Each structure stands twice: as C-alpha cells, then as structure tokens.
C-alpha cells in the first residue's frame, strides 16, 4: 500500500459526500421517509414522571375510552428478556416495577397514526409510590457510595509523596456538564414482521448488530431471523450507539404483538427526556510542582454521572482516565474513577467518549498552576510534554511513539501567530480597562493527543462484503454506518483504489446485518480505519483472482499486468474491467468475497488498568481567541486556528468537515449547552427553545483549518490515514481556556478558578465577580 496518496486513483482525493446529490434534492431516504404499507401502526411512549419509586398501577381505561382502537403494551407483554444492555444485564426497555429516572419508558401506545398514539399517551395515568430520597446529583451519589462496578484506581510512581515534597502544591475541584447529542433526526425505528417469525428492523442506529441482539433478546427469537438495517442516520455523535436499541426493541415488540408494521418516531421532547447524553463529571485534584511548572506529582479523582443504568459508562470512564495525561509525561501519578449511579437518564457515548472530560480536567489543572505561578501556560506545558527527556510512557503503560507535539507547535506559530496575538490581547484588555469598557479578550493554545481504538480489545474488528458483477459494477457493503461523517465515500474510495476503477463503478449499499454480521458500532472514530481495511481485504481477494485469470487470458505473468483506471493493461494489449469481470464469470471464477480485519498490536488489562489499548495516537492543536462582556457575562469566539493530524488523509474535504463540525460541537458543550434539571430531577431543557446548540452566529467568523502536513501514519492503517471523527472536538477546550484567560484579565478580583463548564453567561459573571455561589 502506498505511503503517500499523491498518485492514487481515488484515495486522498476530495470526493463529495456519497449521497450529496440526493440529500440536496430531497431524494435521500431517512427512516421517516420509507413508504409504509397501509396496515402500518404508529407508536408513542409512556414515560415516567418521577425519578425514583415503584409503579403501583398503570391506568389505561381512560386512554382506551378516549380511543378504543389503541393497544397499550408494557413490560408484562414481553415474550423474551426485558433487557437490552450492551455490557451488563441491567437495562430494561420498559420499567417493570421500579422507575429509576424521569423520562424512563414504561409502555408503548400503538395507534393508527402518530397523532392518535401521542394523544392517547396523555390519557394514561401512572400511580407511583415515590421514593423520597432519589439520588439526583454526583455529590450525593459519591457520598452514598452509589457506584456501578468497583471504583478504578491506578498508580504510577509515588504521586502523594512527590506532591508533599514539591515546592508548591494546589488542591481543588471543578465540574463539567453533560451534553445532549441533538442529532437533527430524533430516534426512530420501523419494525416489520414477516413469515416464520422473521423481522426487518429499520433503526437509525450506529450499531445495527446491537439492535439485532436487543430485538432478539426481547422477542426471544434467534438473531438469524432479525434483519437490522440502516441506510443513513440524520446524525449520531454517539447518541445512537447503544441508545437506539431500546426504541428499536420497543417498535419490534409492538410489531410482534400486533403482527403489523410499527413505526416509532420520537418527538424532540421525548427524545431528550428518555435518551442518554454525555456524562457530566466532577474532578478533584491535588498537584505538586516546581517554580517552572514541572509537575512533580498529580492525584486526580474523576466522578462520572452514569445515570440510572451502567450502559457504556465503564469504557467512558476508562477513556477519560487514559486521556488525563493528554500530551504530558507524568511519572508520579494517581488516578481514581468513580462511576456514579443516579436517578437521572443513563448517560452514554458522545463524540470523544470521556476523552474530552479527561482532557478538560488536565488542561484546567495546568491552566490553574500557570496562573498560580504567573508563568505562561505554554512555557509550563514545555516543561511537561512527552519527549525523550521528559519520558514517553503513559501512566497506564503505553509508550507514546511518533510524537508530533513540536511539529504542531512550529506549524501553529506560522499558522496562527500565537505569541504576537497574546500581546495584542493584553493590549486590548489594558485599553478596555483604561477606558472603563466591559470587553475583555482571551487567547489560548492547546495540544491534543487522542488514542485510536475501542478501549475494549474485542470491539476492534470489522467485516465487509464486495461483489463484482459481470457488467463491471461493484457492490460494496460493510459494517459501518453513514451518519454524515463521510464513511461511505471513504470506504468506496478504498475499493475504487484497489481495483483502480473510477469511483462511480462502486455502488455503496446500506448497512445491514444480513450481509455483514457481528459488527462493532460505528464509533470511537474507528469507522474508516476498520471498515476501510476490511473492504480493502475483500476487494483484494477478488482482484487476485481476476489478476490470475487475466494472466491466463494475456498469457503473461501477473506481475506484468496492471489495473489502471478501469482497464487491464498488459504490454500493448488491454481489456476493460467489465470484460475481465465477464470473462471471469464465463470461466467460473468467483467474483465475490468477504473481508475481515482486526486491529493489531493492542492489549488491555482492565483489572490492572494497564496495557497498550490504542493502536496509534492522533495529534491536534488549536488556538482560540475569545471575548467576554464583564457586565453581562456573554461571550463569543472570535477566531479559531486548528491543525489536525489525519495521517495521509483518505479524503481531505471530508476530514476538514469533521474538524469544523467536531470543534463547534465541543464549543457548544463548553459554552451554551446546559442541561438544566428541576430540583425533583426533571430535565427542563427538552427542546431547542431551552437547550441551545451553536447557531450560525455562535461560530468563529475567522476559522482556519489545516491538516498536519506530510504525516503518513507510521502504523499500517488503511493508506496510512488516521481517524478524525472525535479528536477535533477535544480542541474546543482551547476556547474554554481562552475564556479563562479573558476572565483572569477581567479585573483584579476576578477568579478564573470558579469557571465550571459550560461557561454560560451566569458562570462567567460569577467568575468575573469572584462569586462562589454558582
């Protein structure tokens, strides 16, 4: 495989999104657009109104009187297991006796239309015996030791001894909020029953295999009879990794009981109330350091809010803990992770998967140390960066190879002119203070290292299925799902490259468990890495057979035959790819193959919290410039400069899109997106009117992006590319640091330590005024 992408047929070229044309003309089919048979019924969910308690009765008489045609389905109607948990068996599709959060599904109403089903839901009354002491926040869960699993504790060196002996030490704590995924397409599933207990489940999911398993468990029907499908998602971001399964299983249960197709499309309110989000975290730390900012010892405790069930909270915590080091070498390091169980919605995967929380923790600590010492944060970082001098072993034991920190810093200085702009920001602030004006600017750089691979070794596998037809067209299928990230076009580019045929010879098909079984979620940024490699392997098997046959046809050795732009060349003779495909068929040569890939070199011992869980690291860096209004607490991002390592990019256009979108999603998490709960545990931000994701004017008007140059992946990934889905989100932390920088220059009494995430106007005001009540 070529080390650079310059002379390639398809790979490395900026092909457009695979169905861009159809998406722009309204012809792209999402699940809500699938034409329905006449007998299709529609569902709406009955959700819990209390955070914790026992269900004493579900009163449906009024609803049935209101609309006699409805069917009410609850836990007692489940023929199989009331559990769809991906890891631990603790996640019912319907609360049976006990409810554990506001918004938990208790039942399904099926009616002839969505409107009728939703209207009937309002007529259902649930009687509860309320638990008087629900656990609604992290502090209480921690105090009561209400945890999932055994707390994780790992150590390297002697952190506490080093902290004691260090010339300086600081202790503190801070918190960061969760985040709703706010995919534009809400959760949706369409379940269709067929003969012989077969079911087709269309589900907007990142994980069709898990949907298949969930439905199989709930209906007590073998997985082989369940066909789980999705052509595209209207956004996922982790929110449809495990969370889709519950809705798919509920729709399937309705279809099973009524023997008719059932569609369940959640409205935004029910989606936000019932489905999991990014974990909110609390951080407690103590750190010892010298006067130059060299960290001598670090002791960090992370609390994550798992919500009511464990779901993916264990691997999320593992990723948070393994990203506490970011780009820094800590030799004396202790970390603890507590996965707290609360009576709130189960938190789940969200782009970054704990990585952003871990990285925000360490960056905030270093920022605080730099202000304490009154030294530049970037100078402090230099004392601590991974390097041969400082050390290259992570606290969890993986060696950090091919470090690109210096390269990024050098490229960034030319790209963003950081040092000069720091002075301009200070000048601006002095002038604002002198003129008694309310604006303050802040600027910050940050580097990011992100580990690529699922933390759980077994998940790092992928399959593909490639067929070549006798007309020379190629059908591509693999286990990855397309949710806008451009996976389908990237993998098609790989196949086009393998056969050296134009990209439009390759037909991209939707994901389904019939063609490629036992897949992993499209998650952990791994989509193109693992599915691309599986597709390459499948195509290579077919190509070898075709080449062998071409060698017979041309009567030349295979080494003298070349596949070139849809032609097969041998000396001065040639044939088309189509002619060769047809000739293979005539000569009874198989033109179909599966491909399978498993990520090499990775190992992990969760018990000892030790190993090399990541195949490689991606590197990135950003500079953000922020402005705040110290009278109102409002803030803006003025400019962002990003350099991201994509290895040898498979598709620079698509990768840049991921960087732009990921960064802005992170800005939302850290500034305007606040999940607000009532004192009795009810999420009050249930729609875009109260939950604010970034809009067109909340993004930096100056937004400069560049892919790190000449950095093919040193590991043998598909065409030496690197994953890009999650890493850019972490770079948004630079904006949070820029806001802290602005607050630190707001006045003599301002206190940037007080800023917790998200940096809403009220939190910024509190920090500006050193108000500890927030």
């Amino acid at each position, binding site marked *: 495989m070529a080390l650079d992408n310059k002379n390639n047929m398809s790979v490395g070229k900026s092909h*457009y999104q695979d169905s861009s044309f159809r998406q722009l003309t309204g012809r792209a089919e999402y699940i809500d657009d699938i034409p329905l048979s006449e007998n299709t019924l529609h569902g709406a969910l009955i959700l819990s109104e209390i955070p914790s308690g026992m269900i004493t009765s579900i009163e449906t008489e009024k609803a049935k009187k209101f609309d006699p045609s409805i069917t009410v389905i609850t836990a007692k109607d489940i023929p199989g297991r009331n559990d769809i948990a991906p890891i631990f068996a603790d996640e019912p599709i319907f609360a049976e006796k006990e409810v554990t959060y506001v918004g938990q599904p208790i039942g399904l109403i099926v009616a002839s239309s969505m409107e009728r089903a939703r209207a009937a839901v309002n007529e259902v009354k649930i009687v509860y015996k309320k638990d008087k002491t629900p656990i609604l926040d992290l502090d209480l869960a921690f105090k009561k030791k209400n945890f999932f699993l055994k707390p994780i504790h790992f150590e390297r060196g002697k952190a506490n001894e080093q902290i004691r002996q260090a010339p300086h030490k600081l202790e503190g704590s801070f918190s960061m909020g969760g985040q709703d995924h706010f*995919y*534009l397409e809400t959760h949706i599933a369409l379940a269709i029953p067929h003969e012989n207990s077969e079911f087709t489940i269309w589900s907007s999911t990142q994980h069709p295999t898990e949907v298949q398993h969930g439905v199989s468990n709930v209906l007590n029907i073998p997985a082989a009879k369940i066909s789980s499908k999705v052509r595209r998602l*209207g*956004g996922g971001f982790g929110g449809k990794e495990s969370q889709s399964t519950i809705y798919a299983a509920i729709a399937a249960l309705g279809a099973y009981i009524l023997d008719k197709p059932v569609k369940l499309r959640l409205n*935004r309110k029910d989606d936000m109330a019932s489905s999991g989000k990014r974990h909110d975290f609390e951080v407690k730390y103590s750190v010892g350091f010298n006067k130059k900012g060299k960290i001598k010892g670090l002791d960090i405790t992370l609390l994550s809010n798992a919500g009511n069930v464990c779901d993916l909270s264990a691997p999320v915590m593992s990723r948070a803990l393994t990203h506490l080091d970011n780009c820094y070498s800590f030799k004396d390091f202790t970390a603890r992770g507590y996965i707290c169980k609360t009576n709130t919605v189960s938190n789940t995967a969200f782009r970054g998967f704990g990585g952003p929380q871990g990285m925000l923790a360490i960056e905030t600590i270093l920022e605080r140390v730099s202000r304490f010492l009154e030294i530049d944060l970037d100078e402090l970082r230099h004392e601590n960066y991974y390097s041969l001098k400082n050390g290259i072993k992570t606290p969890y034991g993986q060696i950090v190879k091919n470090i690109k920190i210096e390269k990024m810093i050098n490229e960034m200085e030319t790209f963003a002119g950081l040092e000069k702009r720091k002075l301009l920001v200070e000048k601006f602030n002095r002038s604002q203070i002198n003129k008694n004006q309310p604006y303050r600017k802040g600027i910050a750089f940050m580097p990011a290292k992100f580990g690529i691979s699922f933390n759980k070794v077994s998940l790092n596998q992928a399959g593909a299925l490639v067929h070549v037809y006798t007309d020379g067209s190629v059908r591509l299928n693999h286990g990855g799902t397309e949710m806008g990230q451009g996976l389908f076009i990237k993998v098609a580019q790989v196949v086009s490259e393998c056969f050296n045929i134009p990209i439009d010879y390759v037909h991209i098909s939707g994901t389904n468990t019939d063609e490629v079984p036992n897949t992993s979620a499209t998650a952990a940024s791994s989509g193109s890495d693992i599915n691309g490699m599986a597709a390459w392997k499948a195509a290579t098997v077919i190509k070898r057979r075709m080449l062998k046959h071409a060698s017979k046809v041309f009567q030349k050795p295979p080494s003298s035959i070349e596949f070139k732009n849809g032609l097969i060349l041998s000396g001065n003779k040639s044939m088309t790819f189509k002619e060769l495909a047809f000739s293979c068929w005539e000569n009874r040569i198989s033109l179909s193959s599966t491909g399978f890939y498993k990520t090499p070199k990775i190992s992990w011992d969760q018990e000892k919290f030790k190993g090399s869980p990541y195949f490689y690291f991606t590197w990135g860096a950003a500079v953000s410039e922020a402005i705040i209004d110290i009278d109102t607490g409002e803030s803006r991002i003025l400019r962002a400069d990003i350099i991201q390592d994509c290895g040898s990019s498979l598709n620079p256009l698509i990768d840049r899109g991921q960087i732009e979108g990921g*960064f802005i999603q992170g800005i939302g998490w850290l500034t305007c997106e606040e999940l607000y709960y009532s004192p009795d545990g009810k999420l009050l931000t249930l729609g875009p009117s109260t939950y604010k*994701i970034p809009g*067109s*004017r909340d993004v930096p008007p100056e937004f400069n992006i560049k892919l790190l140059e000449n950095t093919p992946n040193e590991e043998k990934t598909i065409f030496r590319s690197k994953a890009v889905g999650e890493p850019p989100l972490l770079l948004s932390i630079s904006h949070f640091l820029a806001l802290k920088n602005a607050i630190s220059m707001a006045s003599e009494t301002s206190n940037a330590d007080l800023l917790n995430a998200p940096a809403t106007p009220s939190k910024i005001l509190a920090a500006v005024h050193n108000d500890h009540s927030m």
Partner: protein
Amino acid sequence: MGEISLKLNGKLETKDVADNTLLIDFIREHVGLTGTHVGCDTSQCGACVIHLDGVSVKACTMLAKQAEGSEIVTIEGLADGDELHPMQQAFHENHGLQCGFCTPGMVMSAVEMVTKNKNISEDEIRKGLEGNICRCTGYHNIVQSVKAGAAKMGG
C-alpha cells in the same frame, strides 16, 4: 375533515384531510414528498422550511388549511430534473452538508435569502441562517456554500 387544494412544486394537489393537519404532514404524509424533514416539531430547528408564495416558512407550525390556494415549493421542486439549482450546486461543491437532515431547510432558507438580497454579505448570511440549526458542519461550509450560491445566482 375538509378538502384542501394548493399548488405543490407546480402541481395542483387536492386532498381531503383533517382540519388540524399540519402543512408538513400534508406535504409528507398526504402528498408523499418526504424531502422536507421534521427535526424538532416546534418551529425551532428549520429542517422543515419550505417556500410559501416565495417566502420561507416552517411547515411544522402551520396548518395545511392556512396554505389553501398557495403556491408551495419544497426541496424537491428546486432542481430542474437532474440539473441542480445553483444553491444546491454550491452546497454540493462546498461540502455544505454532512448527515443531510437539516439540508433541505438550509437550502430553502438560503435561496429565499439570496433571492431577496442578491449582494448578500457574510454577516447577513450568518444572521439569515439563525433559524436553521445544523449539528454536523459547524456552519462553516454552509456559509461558504451560501456565498458561492449567491454568486452563482447572479449576485
């Protein structure tokens, strides 16, 4: 129930529907044009934007009855066969979409904005797109697309 007639992408559509039928449901469910999407059901996200007598309207918060006799253009009515509208072409070339769910509404809003203001500035574009939210792109390429679309539309 009552009969509602309106012109949809140049074609007269007459359907007998319940009085409280939303315009979005008339278009999606009764006529079967599913290019216009529902994102939030509450008039915030803009995935359902269509043109009603040349004006951008959120079809999720308007009754079909209110559109009686109107001329409606949806995303399906923008292209001329396989020839994309200049704004669609600009979104295509500038990678102004990812998951594509907000895209129909984005494009419809953009077309109206530029039709009314041929020399639209970047600031005006950003302001004009405030009623359409996108979770994937970070808006950068959407703004670039609208700029390029405006140029193609003869701005």
